[in-house]
């Protein structure tokens, strides 16, 4: 085992996949000469050359669509969208094209494409630079959407995504890039898309989350263990397909659930999780499923307002305690 950062896990895997298959290319703004705005692609252009690691103009719709078209002819592009906020100008190519091409044309052509992009907020990036839109993509049949929380999962899911013949939206997190974790040395493992993982077993309450929020949930679980509260943490890992079985089985055991998510509360990922749980584990629930999510404002810049608008460990702890008391108030 080696210890490495989430960033390093991404960088390594991208390098490995470039080396493995000459049809794999990386594309995006500033990923080459600039080394990537978040240094995910550092060193790769020098290693693989400008035709494998391609710097694009600022034209997200153009180069995302270009990657889709190239994929239709057998290439396997991995596109970086600098942050998910900028994906809005390219979303037509993803949702009206990439997601439909295989099905709508009766299975005649495949779109082996990965779009990787960090979601969520960090620092004080304010309203236009702190958003989460993974729920939008998770809504769309034809796409696969993954959102790993650890360097280990990054490697396993990125390998699967690159080798998958469908368009995969690979959600990263700015705030995770520097986090560390164990990764097996020299092992070409993959993780299945569409399968959640119980990252920590527990008996009193299930916390369902993904990406950075899974890390927060695991920390809270560890802290609450000291208070004698046993938290099970289900890490979704994939948002589409959604592994409803793993979620429901967990809640059938713990009888209580909280969703922790960084996106906005209404119509976010947590809505689907709560709806799924109440439908699948109705008779098992001792309290309503609560959602801990972002406050519904265009994220303000000022540090304290920004902080107060983002979900964090204290909010999760409060929610867990509420469901343990069978708390049923609404609104929270």
């Amino acid at each position: 085992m080696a210890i490495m950062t989430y960033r390093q896990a991404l960088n390594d895997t991208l390098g490995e996949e470039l080396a493995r298959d000459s049809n794999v290319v990386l594309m995006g703004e500033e990923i080459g000469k600039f080394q990537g705005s978040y240094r995910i692609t550092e060193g790769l252009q020098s290693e693989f050359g400008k035709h494998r690691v391609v710097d694009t103009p600022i034209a997200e719709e153009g180069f995302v669509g270009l990657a889709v078209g190239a994929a239709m002819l057998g290439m396997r592009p991995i596109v970086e969208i600098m942050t998910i906020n900028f994906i809005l100008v390219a979303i037509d190519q993803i949702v009206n094209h990439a997601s439909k091409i295989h099905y709508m044309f009766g299975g005649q052509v495949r779109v082996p494409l990965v779009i990787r992009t960090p979601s969520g907020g960090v620092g004080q990036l304010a309203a236009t630079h702190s958003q989460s839109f993974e729920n939008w993509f998770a809504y769309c049949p034809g796409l696969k959407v993954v959102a790993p929380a650890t360097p280990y999962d990054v490697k396993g899911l990125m390998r699967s995504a690159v080798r998958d013949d469908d368009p995969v939206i690979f959600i990263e997190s700015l705030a995770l890039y520097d986090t560390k974790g164990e990764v097996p040395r020299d092992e070409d493992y993959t993780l299945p898309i569409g399968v959640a993982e119980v990252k920590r077993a527990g008996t009193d309450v299930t916390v369902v989350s993904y990406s950075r929020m899974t890390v927060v949930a695991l920390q809270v679980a560890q802290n609450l263990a000291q208070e004698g509260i046993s938290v099970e943490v289900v890490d979704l890992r994939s948002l589409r397909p959604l592994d409803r079985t793993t979620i429901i089985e967990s809640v059938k055991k713990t009888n209580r659930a909280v969703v922790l998510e960084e996106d906005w509360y209404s119509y976010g990922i947590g809505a689907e999780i709560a709806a799924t749980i109440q439908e699948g584990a109705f008779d098992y629930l001792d309290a309503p499923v609560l959602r801990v999510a972002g406050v519904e404002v265009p994220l303000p810049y000022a540090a304290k307002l920004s902080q107060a608008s983002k979900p964090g460990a204290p909010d999760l702890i409060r929610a867990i305690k509420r469901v343990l008391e069978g708390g049923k108030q609404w609104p929270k």
Partner: protein
Amino acid sequence: MAKRTNQPTTGAEPAGRDLSSENPQELQQYYAQMLLLRRFEERTSEMYTKAKIGGYCHLNLGEEATIVGLMAALTPADYIFTNYREHGYIIARGVAPGPVMAELFGKETGVSRGRGGSMHLFDATAHFMGGYAIVGGQLPLATGAAYALKYQGKPGVVVCQMGDATTNIGAWHESLNLAALWDLPVIFLVVNNGYGMGTTVDEGAAEPDLYKRGCAFRMHGERVDGTDVLAMRDATRRLRERAEQEKKPAILEAVSFRFRGHSVIDSDRYRDPEAVKQGRNANDPLPHFAHQLVLAGVVDDAWLKATASRIDQEVQEAIDFAEHSPNPKIEDLFDYMYATPVPNTPGRAEAAIIAQNAQGGR
């Protein structure tokens, strides 16, 4: 090239043309293909009225020479991306009319297995890479296909067809810039039929000489009479050669006249019926070409008659094929959902339940 946007030629009888350098069989075939497209679209319109066809349906009437001339210049290695007005393109590319009509009928034997419909035709073997129904959506895709050809060192070029009004959308700018910047083998074919839906070219484009809009990318552009099959073929050949050999993209603007409304359900009430009639007569590629062929002695009246009835027959057979083909089964609803299977996705068991419910009156 003298022809101006939105200025249909007047109905003067075309002069005879020197066709001595042409292969007569090829000329005959061009004519036959144009007639096939014409009859196919006329019958399609009829089938729509009979409710055999649903959704939106856009016809190529008036654009036959553009399409046949284009395809005459392409090779099997080339790829074609189009918008939703594409019945003629896939047929002229060599796909049998039967499976095309079957797609319009929503049948399992259709070119897209009944999943796509009129706006979403596809044939992998013919390198016909799809009709796309979001205006401008096919431009980045086609640019990407050209990127792949160049990257993989394969021969061939990509043709990206679109309408005049499509040059006003952002994807135009981004795609052409990328194609020019990276020297990609792609021809952007702008079919200028004078209208978006009811909007004229001048009402949408601040530079209505559309072939000139490549100036923003130092990209070459040409305008051609889209009702002249030979002019169209020759222009395509030139630009194709350049694209393949020099990896230089180009714009080809083909000007023609839209015979009917935007789609079969558009009653075209924003155009003056008299002007439309005149425009149609003046810009109909078929009689003009027939007349030239007769004058040049390439065909005679008997041949024209025989060809017409052969083609009527062919289109009728396509309709019969479509009519007698099976519908897709609800049990197959989730087939082609994902190319690489993954857990937790619905499959045949779920489709069977949906099928059962549907029979129960869904």
